[in-house]
């Protein structure tokens, strides 16, 4: 039963085997491909996929759409500015927490400034 499941998964992976070697995503895919590499069926499939991908690469891009390629910045998130960093809720919350901690620490130090060894006895 388990073997059947493994074989089915391996078959599924081979059907999705990448066209370029750069897209061998994970270990299971690499293992499935290396096990089948060289078999007639798999070679046919890879040649078929490569030929289709080659035709897709030939899809012409109209000049009106190509204008967007020059203006990639238009769909990038705006750059971080000091104002945006400071107003970021996480940064703001951490800053307030640090201020409170510093305040408590300063209060503790100031209240113990007048202390000396044996001050409790003297009081």
């Amino acid at each position: 039963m388990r073997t059947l499941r493994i074989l089915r998964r391996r078959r599924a992976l081979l059907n999705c085997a990448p066209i370029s070697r750069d897209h061998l995503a994970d270990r299971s895919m690499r293992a499935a491909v290396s096990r089948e590499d060289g078999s007639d069926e798999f070679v046919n499939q890879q040649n078929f996929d490569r030929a289709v991908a080659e035709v897709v690469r030939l899809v012409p891009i109209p000049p009106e759409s190509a204008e967007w390629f020059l203006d990639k910045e238009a769909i990038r998130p705006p750059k971080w500015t000091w104002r945006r960093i400071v107003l970021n809720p996480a940064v703001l919350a951490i800053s307030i927490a640090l201020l409170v901690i510093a305040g408590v620490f300063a209060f503790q130090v100031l209240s113990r400034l007048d202390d000396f060894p044996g001050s409790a006895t003297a009081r």
Partner: protein
Amino acid sequence: MSDRKQNLPQLYRFCFLMLGDARKAQEVFNTTLREAAAHAAQGELPKEPFWLFREARWRCLEASKTDLQPEALEIEEHDIAPQAASQIKQLEPTQLAVWVSAAPDPQRTALALFYLDEFDYLEILDIAELKLSTLSRCLAQGRRQLQAWLDAKHHGASNA
């Protein structure tokens, strides 16, 4: 955002494969990017990778909803032939796009994303929101159906 995640020529090709029509592809491509630019200006771009492709996919499906839908027929399937690569090389990109766009979804999305040769299978599963078994079935069936179509085309041409 890395250049791979917003590879705009590939985004246009994806729209073209999904719709099989240059005018419609251009319309969806431009609308998707105009909306993205508007969101970017407000600092509201989605964080997940490949969201542009996901957006374009939904727009393509929406755009083709009003089109005439192919009848649900049993499509012929053939084993991949050794000479398939040379048959495919004779195809025009538009012919291939028309063939892909006529496939029912999710097969259409799977074929379009896969043959862009831009994503690995995990990324395709993520963009198309599919399971491995479904993607595998769509691709295997797609290859066999495309081979049958190529054979019929080749046979028709040689008879003529």
